[in-house]
């Protein structure tokens, strides 16, 4: 990232009038909207500027289907990196692109494997305090903001469903009534829900930082073993192997009362025998069962 662009540098004429820099855990649309706001442009202006010119997706679908904003195949992130004089790495970090490609080892629509929220939601407190749209807003199992312990909102007080971008809206406002998103209802989240979602987020974080196809397969086998052990008929092999997204897998793991540590242990070199219900205290420093603790 270039901290300061001077007039004599070529970058002056290759960057937007006002530059914004992605923040930790910020989601790409938040960066694009902050860029619109800083430059006094309407919502969607920066988005349109980095849209690949030859994409074949309808404009409406582009603005409503969030998979394009999680793994942006039709957005030129390298161009955005030039326009903001920010490293491409920092821009890619506002998506789940590199994490999903690593976890699923596939470049074909990895966003489908993630399991996304069906609507755009946001935390009004995050907006009010930091103008922040977090990456976690798109995760299927997440319905509240763990930092502010309020429910995510997907509708304006006027009843309109929130849309990330809209050609007639100002950044961070309802396209229908113009209400600023920071003024949406701040509804406190149920503490038990916050606790549950903390577990979901731990798993998401676990897979996003350590996930590989092998670890994912191992987590699926853990669930299958568990189902077999409990003689459950609901979760068939096909369902777990093929039908489940990462979000569904995490849902099953959390509801099966597993932790990321269980998955790590199961993926370890020793045969797994329902370790969860065993008391195991190995004194050896190199014991693989201690791996996740360390």
């Amino acid at each position: 990232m270039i901290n300061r662009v001077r007039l004599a540098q070529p970058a002056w004429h290759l960057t937007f009038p006002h530059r914004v820099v992605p923040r930790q855990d910020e989601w790409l649309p938040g960066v694009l909207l902050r860029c619109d706001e800083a430059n006094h442009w309407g919502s969607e202006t920066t988005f349109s500027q980095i849209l690949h010119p030859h994409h074949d997706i309808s404009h409406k679908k582009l603005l409503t289907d969030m998979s394009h904003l999680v793994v942006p195949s039709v957005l030129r992130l390298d161009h955005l990196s030039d326009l903001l004089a920010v490293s491409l790495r920092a821009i890619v970090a506002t998506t789940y692109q590199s994490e999903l490609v690593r976890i699923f080892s596939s470049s074909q629509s990895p966003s489908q494997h993630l399991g996304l929220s069906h609507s755009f939601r946001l935390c009004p407190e995050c907006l009010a305090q930091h103008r922040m749209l977090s990456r976690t807003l798109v995760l299927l199992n997440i319905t509240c903001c763990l930092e502010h312990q309020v429910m995510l909102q997907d509708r304006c007080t006027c009843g309109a469903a929130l849309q990330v971008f809209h050609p007639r809206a100002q950044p961070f406002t309802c396209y229908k009534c113009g209400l600023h998103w920071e003024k949406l209802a701040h509804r406190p989240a149920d503490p038990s829900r916050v606790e549950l979602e903390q577990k979901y987020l731990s798993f998401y974080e676990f897979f996003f930082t350590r996930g590989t196809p092998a670890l994912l397969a191992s987590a699926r086998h853990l669930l299958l073993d568990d189902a077999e052990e409990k003689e459950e008929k609901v979760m068939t092999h096909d369902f777990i192997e093929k039908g489940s997204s990462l979000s569904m897998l995490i849902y099953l793991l959390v509801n099966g009362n597993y932790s990321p540590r269980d998955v790590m242990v199961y993926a370890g070199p020793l045969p797994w025998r329902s370790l969860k219900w065993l008391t195991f205290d190995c004194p050896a420093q190199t014991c693989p069962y201690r791996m996740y603790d360390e």
Partner: protein
Amino acid sequence: MTNHLSQDGRSPFQVQESFIETAFEQRFQTLLRHAWQARSWHVIAAVPGSGKSLGINDVIVNSGARKDANGTTSLPVLAVRAPKNAKQEQALGMALSASFGVVPPMDWQLRRVWLARVMASTQVECLIIDDAQDLTLPHLAFLKELTDNLAAPPYQRQIGLCLVAANGGNVVPFKETFADPEILWRQFRRRLDTERPFCVVLGHTMEEVRDILTTFEDIYRSQLPDLKLRAFAKPIFTWLTHQSLDPDATGRVTMDHLTRLVISALRHSYEQGETSVNEKVLQGRAEFMILRRDEITAIDGTSSQPSFEATEVG
């Protein structure tokens, strides 16, 4: 690319592009900085080749303009060249927009509002229009509207304005236009600086030419170790104030003419293996500029042939 060596095996003559703060630049930039600091409006004229554009560039590069990573952009001095062959106000609006960097396409009505907003948010304090003699009536009307919008709420920003124009024939651009009784021009006229509304910045006197030659000696000493140019200040001044180079009889020398003469003579001497330059070479180059400047040269053969030569046919 092949690096051709001269006859004595030296590397090719290198023209130094460094900006020289000449007496003209000091006079010119003092006016620009005054307009910037006092937020005053001026029409500033000088003959072509004086170094106006270089001076403007030097001012904006050193104005502290920056784009920070936190979203703050500062462009205290905004300078554009007047649009050529584009009479509509949009052309000037586009030129102003482009000064800020990459701006997405937008409707003109939206852009004119946006321009005022971005000029306010980037803290523009002075607007300089180079080649202002090319401005049209719609351009000037747009400039007035833009500066009026900036001066009004919510921005309330007074900005300086310099219309920098090339002049000739002792005529100052815009003087007659702004004297017109039409309301627009009266309003324009009212905004001009009280003490120095129309300024003509003069070229170099003989003493100033001598100072510049001293600077050239320093700059080119690495290539021509025995270079002494100061001694030729008087003849150079006389040649460069010849009627063909100074048609308005200002009795002053432009930086363009002085640089052309000196560089041409230095290059010629260097390529002949000399370590300095003599009056004969300078005079020969001056004659090219004064007497033979309209000659037509026929180019024949190819550059790879040893016989490649140019023959004067004029």
